[in-house]
């Protein structure tokens, strides 16, 4: 079986926060307690979207010690394939859904003397849970949170009310920018940096920190990618002895699942490495989008991450 263990839940609250972001609350259908988790964990939400099964990862933002309910926040992506649109338009209070056990690919390094959080937009959500975890143990943390505008600043009020000294907000439309070089320069020894936001922000933080001589192990990042639509392509699966078609708006992983091929997965967002698949033969170009393989692996033509990456060309044979 692929993926983490499943939990049957019902939706007990749906709260639109602003133009783009809506919060959902889940409780167990059987009334029991949900597992505790560690700050930074996500759950994979299963959606039955008119016969198509969508599985999207969302960071858990509720208090990790609160076993009565989980909450997630979903940003609407009008250009995407529909997972977030389904959550926004279809999911109502009382609906029954299936989510996965918590999985953490963005854990706190508990050795850190200080945790420095850098968030962009919806990337705030894992930090909300991490802040609650650290507050319980008097952890030392600081948050720098960049949003497009006051109107789109999800949870800004809650953060600045409860943690006025630790929280720093930056609004793009007011030309406010995190002074990163200066911020990193002033940190005490033993600080760990965590960044969650758009790819550009993650790259910026990693590059700036590396240039300032920060150890690689002290910089943590997470970005879940949604699979992007693309041209349809054909794949031969050597072990299953099948030839399958990957449609325009489905991922390679989803196409394999549709054909009944049991392919491993966990995050479905190019981060965890679980679905890594060997390429046996190809003629064409890979469109690699994951964070898992390094540049050399991407150019080797030997590996693909079917959750987010695609292919354009004549032949692709996979060891699956």
């Amino acid at each position, binding site marked *: 079986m692929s993926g983490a*263990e499943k939990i049957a839940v019902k939706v007990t609250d749906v709260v639109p926060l602003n133009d783009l972001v809506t919060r959902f609350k889940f409780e167990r259908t059987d009334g029991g307690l949900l597992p505790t988790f*560690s700050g930074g964990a996500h759950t994979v939400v299963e959606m039955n979207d008119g016969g198509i099964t969508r599985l999207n990862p969302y960071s858990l933002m509720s208090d990790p010690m609160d076993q009565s309910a989980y909450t997630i926040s979903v940003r609407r992506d009008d250009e995407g394939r529909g997972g977030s649109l389904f959550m926004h338009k279809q999911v109502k209070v009382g609906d029954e859904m299936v989510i996965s056990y*918590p999985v*953490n690919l963005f*854990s706190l390094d508990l050795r850190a003397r200080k945790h420095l959080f850098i968030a962009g937009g919806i990337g705030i959500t894992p930090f909300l849970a991490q802040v609650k975890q650290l507050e319980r*143990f008097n952890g030392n943390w600081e948050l720098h949170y960049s949003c497009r505008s006051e109107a789109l600043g999800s949870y800004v009020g809650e953060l600045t009310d409860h943690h006025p000294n630790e929280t720093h907000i930056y609004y793009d439309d007011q030309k406010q920018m995190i002074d990163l070089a200066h911020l990193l320069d002033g940190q005490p020894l033993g600080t760990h940096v965590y960044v969650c936001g758009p790819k550009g922000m993650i790259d910026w933080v990693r590059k700036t920190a590396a240039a300032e001589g920060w150890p690689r192990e002290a910089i943590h990042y997470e970005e879940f990618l949604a699979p992007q639509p693309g041209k349809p392509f054909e794949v031969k699966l050597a072990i299953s002895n099948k030839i399958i078609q990957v449609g325009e708006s489905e991922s390679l992983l989803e196409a394999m699942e549709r054909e009944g091929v049991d392919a491993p997965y966990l995050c479905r967002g190019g981060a965890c490495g679980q679905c890594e698949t060997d390429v046996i033969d190809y003629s064409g170009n890979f469109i690699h989008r994951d964070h898992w393989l390094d540049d050399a692996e991407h150019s080797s033509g030997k590996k693909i991450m079917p959750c987010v990456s695609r292919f354009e060309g004549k032949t692709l044979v996979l060891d699956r």
Partner: protein
Amino acid sequence: MTIQFNDETFRDDYSFYNSDRAIKRFPFPFHEDSYMYSVNMEQHRGGPVDSIYEKRFDVDEHYLSEMRDRAMVLADDPLRCQSLPHMTLAGWDLLELIMVSKSEDYPDLFELHRDGNKWRWINKPMGIDDTFTFLDEATLPYGPMEYITRQAQGDFAVLDQRDDNLWMDAGMITTQADWSLDFDLGMNFFEWHAPVPLAHEKGIFIRALKFLLNIQQGAPARRLNWTMTVNPLLDTSPENYHKWGVQKTEIAPENLGSKQHLRVELQTFFRLPRSNALVFPIRCYLCSFQDLMTVPKWGRRLHRVIRDLPEELATYKGFIDNRPMMLDYLSKFDDGQPTSDGIWPDLETEPALKK
């Protein structure tokens, strides 16, 4: 089912023994007539009734005596239990996992009553009835990991997960097959496995690490490992090698059946929820050769496995010098008949030894 606890020792006079029930449920580690390393992992979610796989943490007739032995080891050498400062939360995770599992799996032996963070833990076999505040170390006589592992059979390595690796940052290690927590503390997965022969070349550790990093909450895993021990000694530590190493020379044809023990580890792996650490319980089961030979299938198979084992492995597992004597003994229990697949004794279906 009530368990009759043995009153026995794992040192000095070695009064340790296995009842008939314990022999039948012994985790014989060879599923076929040969052995080579493999990742051999499976899900840890129950197993046949009364097998060592049935419960999350097996409690058996040796429980009280093993806990007494652990207390003696710790009194002599407190460094067998260590926890780096960042691992305290993982210790609480482990305490919760063991208390919840044991109270659910053995309600006649263990009780856990929770009112918010006010917890009451009753361990009837050990006569413990403690009330404490969850996540408040000051309310327990030891740190959370030490407190609960003084009441749980087997060793516990608590591994931090970071930088795509596992780190030996805490543990309670008193029943080990010749490795030292004090030496390994702070090492990563590849560092602490460096002494193992052959497996590195086979890429075993890279695959094993990848598997372990991906063990998720609610989906524990398990495997068996094995070695040989002369005398039923739980504490075969490097620290005490000067005491037990010499005992390997005391083996003779007339005492081998009772002194030579197959030592099997049930290794399980659980993701810990609050800390995202991984706990690796290593539960040691001992069985003398003469007790193993009461199961005809195991007699045939053990002879074949030991006979054909590569020299490097027999050396690493510490019995290369005694192997000829072991084979003399074991060959008498191998009549050349075929054996059934799998580890189970199959007493009803396997033929008796042909003389």
